[in-house]
């Protein structure tokens, strides 16, 4: 038992923090959001040069033999800097499902590029009803038809994984985004992470199918779990970033002749954010550790972590805004960059109720 970061993780965190504070201040974050794609490839190149996309892969796959614990460290730093980058998307929702699948040809074609970062993948999961991952019918006779919402970084991606139903069977397919019949449109959503509508009318080749039937269900379930853990890791960083703004304000801002941080009502709200984020970091790292070690409790720990991340996101938004007053509500102030992403991550990959139900189930409450 040792609930502190390893020496390697501390170094990784330091280098990520230095890189992000030097290269991606909040002005750059605002510029990125204003880009049509919501991201820039040149920034991605500099991130992948640091090895971020490869940390969680085995050496055999061109990786650094690390794990989710290491990815979390980077996710926290991205969150702290309020930076939206397709790291968790391309790794958890693209490369890892491919690595887990038995689709040899697709692995050969894409995996090396995803691991070294020369390719970006994303996954089109959500059906237009806003609930289902799988359409009742998505295609037959070698064609893929459908529309998906909330596909992150779709305009930057080279590869699109799609959950669909082919010939009456669940299927996960991977199609290059330059294939004819793919249209993307940026959605106006809360978060600063670019989200897209993707419309598909695509001719499939047999090699495009990554997994079918229960194998497809399994791969997607694992990918969603991995994404839940990594977004919870982003919540840790986003909360740290928002808290730092709140604390700085409480020290500087004077009312009634003293800094407002001397008032217990103000201080305690910020303390409660510190309290929750510290617990969240431990829960999220335990979930990552469970995934990395193949623990039978991984499902429980992932659900604990994501449920807690959702609570923390709410507390952070409420308490930092309350401490900041009117200025924090303006678009000029950086707090909104954190606020919008916290809310977007709260509703992504399992709302609070979903994960609480998973915990209840794992605790043995008879349904």
């Amino acid at each position, binding site marked *: *038992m*040792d*609930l*502190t*970061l*390893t020496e390697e993780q501390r170094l990784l965190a330091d280098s990520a923090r230095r890189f992000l504070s030097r290269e991606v201040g909040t002005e750059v974050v605002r510029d990125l959001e204003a880009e049509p794609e919501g991201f820039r490839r040149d920034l991605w190149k500099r991130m992948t040069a640091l090895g971020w996309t490869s940390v969680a892969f085995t050496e055999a796959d061109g990786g650094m033999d690390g794990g989710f*614990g290491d990815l979390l460290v980077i996710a926290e730093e991205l969150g702290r800097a309020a930076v939206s980058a397709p790291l968790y998307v391309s790794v958890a929702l693209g490369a890892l499902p491919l690595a887990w699948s038995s689709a040899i040809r697709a692995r050969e074609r894409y995996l090396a590029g995803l691991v070294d970062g020369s390719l970006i993948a994303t996954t089109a999961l959500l059906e237009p009803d806003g609930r289902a991952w799988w359409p009742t019918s998505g295609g037959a006779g070698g064609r893929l038809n459908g529309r998906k919402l909330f596909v992150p970084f779709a305009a930057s991606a080279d590869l699109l994984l799609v959950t669909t139903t082919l010939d009456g069977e669940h299927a996960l397919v991977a199609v290059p985004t330059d294939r004819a019949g793919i249209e993307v449109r940026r959605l106006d959503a809360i978060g600063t992470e670019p989200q897209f509508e993707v419309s598909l009318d695509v001719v499939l080749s047999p090699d495009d199918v990554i997994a079918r039937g229960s194998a497809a269900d399994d791969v997607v379930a694992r990918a969603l779990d991995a994404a839940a853990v990594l977004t919870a890791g982003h919540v840790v960083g986003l909360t740290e970033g928002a808290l730092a703004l709140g*604390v700085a304000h*409480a*020290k500087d801002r004077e009312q009634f002749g*003293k*800094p407002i*941080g*001397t*008032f*217990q009502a103000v*201080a*305690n709200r*910020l*303390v*409660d954010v*510190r*309290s929750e984020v*510290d*617990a*969240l970091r*431990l*829960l999220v*790292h*335990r979930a990552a*550790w*469970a995934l990395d*070690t193949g623990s039978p409790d991984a499902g429980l720990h992932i659900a*604990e972590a994501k*449920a*807690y991340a959702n609570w923390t996101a709410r507390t952070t938004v409420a308490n930092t805004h309350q401490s900041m007053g009117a200025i924090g509500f303006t678009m000029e102030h950086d707090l909104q960059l954190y606020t919008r992403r916290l809310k977007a991550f709260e509703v992504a990959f399992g709302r609070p*109720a979903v994960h*609480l*139900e998973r*915990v*209840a189930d794992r*605790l*043995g*409450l*008879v*349904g």
Partner: protein
Amino acid sequence: MDFAETPENAEFRARLREFLTEELPEWWSGLFDADEQTIPLTRHICAKLAERGWLTMSWPEEFGGAASDLWKQLVLREEMWTHQEPRGPQYMNVNYIGPMIMKFGTREQHDRFLKPMAEGRVIWTQGFSEPGAGSDLAAVSCKATEVEGGFVVNGSKIWNSYADAPADWCFLVVRSDPGSTRNKGLSILMVDMNTPGVTVRPILSLAGPRELNELFFDDVFVPADCLLGAKDDGWSMIVYGLALERAGVPWYAFVRQFLPDLIDYCNRTIVDGAPLSARPEVRAQIAEMHIRMEAARLMHYRVVSLQEAGVDAPVESALSILHSALAFQHAGQVGLETLGPLGQLARCEPDAPLRGAARQHWQLSVAATIAGGSADIQRNIVAQRGLGLPRAS
């Protein structure tokens, strides 16, 4: 990060559980039971623990301990508290009164006080808080006047646990320099509770008997050889001692013990044709109770990780206490809400579900954000030392 318990500690935990299952009788429900057998049982358990070398295993070898690491000590604490702390009042001796005597006492004091503690034969009470001073520990007015051969103590103390057990000794903080204020001029005296002039007044609380008392000292003579460390140098010793106290562990341990029983009750209890466990609100509340408990547990494990690495962790420690207290209070609410009206019944009532555990936990939990350093004080520590916010002047 590594979240796995070592095989050695897992085995130690299993042995402790086996021991406690064997030794604890059916009627045992914790320290604050009015039953006359309670205190004798805790003495018996401590003697048995001492025989196995477990009572003082955290102590250095020269004082008869095994110098066990902090993780092993934590396992012991967790297992004791998940069984309602059958060491009774003696956990305080082991955790910090003994270690303070080791650190600051004379060789004669070591010989005199530590052996009975190690054998599980003696009960101490702590005399820190005063009627006019709750969270403000330095506001001590109970005074010790130096006389020939020792001190004469006058004043009172409050919130003294187990003084009516009865306690044999009191670990007493006094103002020994009459001209001093705040944390200057304080001393620690070890007072024989049988000395003339010592009066114990039990205060009934929501926890039950023995949790709280008031102590009165009326011209109580304390011999000079019962002064711990240097006269007027008490504050640094108090600070040292408070850091040894692992407040918070009992609360998450209570929740950890209660949770499986509550789940079992919900699975077995059929209401309107379906088990209580199938109700969405019950499922969500119990899941939340579990997650809060786990968060508190990990916060404590972080403190131990840091301390094992030689890092002082006052902010992390304050946060762990806060988490534990709030998780316990939440569990108290969920327990009573889940059980419905019958949850209010005391264990002596034949209709009480879970032998009255929900009510007992809820009553105890009300004090969780007050006892041993209130939640407000813990938050102040985090605000000032953790977040670097300015102090109110």
